[in-house]
């Protein structure tokens, strides 16, 4: 079975989701990512969804789960690059991903992680 590659960038992990995932692939990503967080002692995860044209409640739930699990493993998750049409649809769907931090692109997401990890003490929420 194919898997979504997870890149390690210094202290962070970067996942770029580029394919229209079927549900099992999404579940596999969730497992792989938590494994890698523990193995590399990463403190931040960036999930780039800028090429995703659809995020339904299943993928939305997976993203929320990853954020929740990462938090328990002491890592921050930032979702970056969500498209406007996807954001509008998710809100209409009733999914606002409350516990998930977001940024416009990978650069800004990285900045956000850095300030919340090394910046002011009240940075991480």
């Amino acid at each position, binding site marked *: 079975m194919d898997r979504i590659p997870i890149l390690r960038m210094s202290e962070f992990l970067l996942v770029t989701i580029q394919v229209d995932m079927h549900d099992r692939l999404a579940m596999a990503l969730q497992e792989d990512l938590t494994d890698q967080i523990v193995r590399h002692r990463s403190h931040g995860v960036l999930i780039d969804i800028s090429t995703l044209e659809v995020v339904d409640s299943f993928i939305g739930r997976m993203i929320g789960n990853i954020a929740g699990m990462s938090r328990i493993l002491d890592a921050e998750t930032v979702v970056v690059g969500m498209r406007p049409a996807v954001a*509008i649809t998710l809100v*209409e769907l009733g999914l*606002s991903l409350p516990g998930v931090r977001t940024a*416009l692109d990978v650069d800004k997401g990285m900045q956000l992680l850095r300030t919340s990890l090394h910046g002011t003490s009240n940075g991480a929420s």
Partner: protein
Amino acid sequence: MTKVASRLPDILKRHDAAILKEWVNEQLSVSRPEAMKESALREHAQRFFGLFRDAVQSGELGDVSGPAWAAVREMLGELSQSCTTLGYTPTETATFVLSLKQPLFTRLRQEVGRDAEALADETWAVTGLLDQLGLYTTEVFLKGREDLIRRQQQDMMELSTPVVQLWDNVLALPLIGTLDSARTQIVMENLLHKIVETGAAIAIIDITGVPTVDTLVAQHLLKTVAAARLMGADCIISGIRPQIAQTIVHLGVELANVVTKATLADAFQIALQKTGASIGKATAR
């Protein structure tokens, strides 16, 4: 039933020139200040009467929506539209058609006057027929107006939702006028696209120019804020007037997760703080 009985087709055929003349004279004699010019009137009357006479020959007198009346309807449609552009009232256009009743009634009385029952039937048929055609001109007029309103609404929609860049990373969306759900959707999409385009971290939605906020509008605003957050930008809602603050609380709309400010200036200051910039008066040394 009128199909068999009516003598109207026959009467029109035999006296067409005379009826037309009476009709036009009748209209010209009643001079109203806003009436059509004589030349135009004669031309329209001739065209309409010709088509009307032909359509009546089909014998279909009960219903003008059929194929027999297509040419008449088309002519009236054009007439109604051109009258509107020339500034005639819809009453004027309808009167044009309805005034044909008098010469027709006169003829009918002459032709079938001895048979009271037949006269009543014929009169009734002609009245119904001309009423339908008169109403049709009004309908066309209304439809024209509706199209105009729809076009203007669309124009307004495109004009009224500018997204402006206030500073690096700071956008503002000054909303003016009533928000309905169609407009809010356009506003929302515009703002979100502009956020992607400029990479802005903060968007200020200023509702100073929005007269009322009901539950629906408040929900639309909240949705916009939520969608922007999903993309990675924060929104500030500013320009909330006291009455609007009251209605929002009375409606029980939850604005707790949204940063709100009384004025655009306050919102701008917060936005600058959040993006790490600041503005101050230059201090004299």
